[in-house]
């Protein structure tokens, strides 16, 4: 059985539109106009058990909408979903025991209570014996160094501390699949890293399937082996991270420091990204030219230092976003 199977899934939102001003407001009451928005448009994909999948796309692409359908929060307009063999909106409760959800922009904790009391509460909700809950809390306490704030009411926690607690609260029942919708939004690099390391460990030790959306390329690059890119409600790419990184654009960046100024012009397959004083930055299209062509063009005798790298993932992704914008 696959962890997730989705076939031709669509979601159309109907929202009221309103012309501007008071007149528009009155008009909207008596004669409401609706606008349809295809947030998710016939997407199909599968996720294997134990995978870490990045589900990414620009703002408004339909990522959160997809997660909400997969977790049974939203009813799809059409299409089929199976999560661990369960139809999410038909058997929400049954599914609830098997999945965990973290929304970086929503809150589930009781803010007057301490993280410890919160964890105990969530444990009880899933019918987990108290002894086991306590053991798990202890375990998470070690991993996330919760000591410092486990007994501080949640309202007194920083954003990062709160997010860690949100994640722990969603994991207290050790779900088979963890859905994370922008879990690192607004967090500092240290906490981000902590969360990434933890997710990785969770996947490795407990074989938890991870379904992640994020705008942070670091999250995606460090965690995921596979990427699905959505744009305008369509899947525009479904490939391994490796393919995306090394083959998708087939481009390399050559940065060189020269001992004299040389004048270059764009040639077919090699474009100049930067030419400032003695520093040059070239982009080589490997389908047309090779790295050695680029080095020859520079004149090897004049090179003091050279650095050849892949196109940054960030650039690759933003290029795909732009290309598929319709």
């Amino acid at each position, binding site marked *: 059985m696959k962890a997730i199977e989705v076939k031709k899934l669509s979601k159309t939102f109907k929202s009221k539109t309103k012309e501007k001003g008071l007149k528009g407001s009155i008009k909207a009451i008596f004669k409401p106009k609706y606008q349809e928005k295809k947030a998710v448009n016939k997407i199909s994909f599968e996720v294997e058990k134990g995978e870490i999948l990045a589900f990414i796309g620009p703002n408004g692409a339909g990522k*959160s909408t997809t997660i909400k359908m997969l977790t049974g929060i*939203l009813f799809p307009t059409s299409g089929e979903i199976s999560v661990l063999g369960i139809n999410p909106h038909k058997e929400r409760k049954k599914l609830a025991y098997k999945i965990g*959800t973290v929304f970086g*922009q*929503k809150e*589930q904790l009781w803010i007057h209570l301490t993280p410890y009391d919160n964890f105990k*509460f969530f444990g*009880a*909700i899933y019918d987990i014996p108290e002894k086991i809950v306590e053991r798990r809390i202890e375990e998470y306490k070690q991993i996330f160094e919760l000591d410092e704030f486990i007994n501080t009411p949640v309202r007194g926690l920083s954003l990062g501390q709160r997010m860690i607690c949100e994640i722990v609260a969603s994991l207290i029942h050790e779900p088979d699949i963890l859905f994370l919708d922008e879990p690192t939004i607004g967090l500092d690099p240290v906490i981000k890293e902590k969360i990434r390391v933890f997710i990785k460990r969770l996947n490795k030790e407990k074989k938890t399937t991870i379904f992640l959306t994020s705008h942070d390329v670091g999250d995606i690059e460090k965690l995921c082996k596979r990427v699905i890119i959505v744009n305008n409600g369509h899947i525009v790419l479904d490939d391994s991270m490796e393919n995306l990184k090394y083959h998708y654009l087939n481009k390399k960046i050559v940065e060189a420091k020269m001992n004299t100024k040389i004048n270059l012009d764009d040639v077919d397959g090699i474009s100049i990204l930067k030419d400032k004083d003695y520093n040059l930055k070239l982009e080589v299209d490997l389908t047309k030219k090779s790295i050695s062509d680029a080095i020859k063009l520079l004149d090897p005798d004049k090179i003091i230092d050279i650095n050849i790298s892949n196109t940054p993932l960030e650039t690759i992704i933003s290029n795909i976003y732009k290309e598929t914008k319709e």
Partner: protein
Amino acid sequence: MKKYLNVAKTTFNDSIQYATSIIFRIGGFTITMLILISLWNFIYSGNDNLINGYSLKEMIWYLLLAEIITFGSGSKVATNEVKNCIKSGNIAYQVTKPYSYPIYVIFKFIADTFIRFIIFLLVATTLGLIFAGPLETFNIQTLIISIPVFFLAVLITGMTRILISLSSFWVEDSTPFQNVYSKIILIFGVFFPMEMFPSIIRTIVRFSPIYGVSYGPAKLVISSSFTLFKEVILSQIIIIIVISILISIVYRKGARKLNVNGG
């Protein structure tokens, strides 16, 4: 069931943290009561006449007892919390938990109401003893039959408030509806016992939830009547069944069309 008891326990734990805020509301409660008590004193103007069958003492007790329920069940859990949960989209989390959200809120409401109710009960009883004197007919039997009736009255109030809050799935703001509900209860249930109204209104009140949430419980304590007890309990049970069905239908409809905002 066990998990809902846990919800109650956790809420109780939570509500103790801000119990001090109730102290401030007691001030408002006491002032309102004192004004109304002196109003009734003025209307009765010192003589022993009965008004629609109520002596001054009974009238003051009626007012206090009915007010305990409205003030005592004023927990924000059933009103603002449900509304905000739906409006902010945090309901998304609730939907993914292995419990029924309406039942979860009901248990939360009961637990959150507990301390508050006891505080208002004590304050109102003290006011009653000072300004009206003890009710002669009140005895241990009255106390025993009053407990379930008051409990159900609070429960009905909470459930009605939750039902109204669930309208947030469709409307921008459910607060105006809550205010209308409060005013109706206040006028037709708390300030005046239904005997004071013309017969048409009396009949409407008799078969509306007002009977179960204010008139019934208050009148029961004053009259100590076992017949009344049976009538009140019966109508409360019917109301609870009807409201439960309504909540379940409305919630299911709402969840179906739920458009979680943001994120």
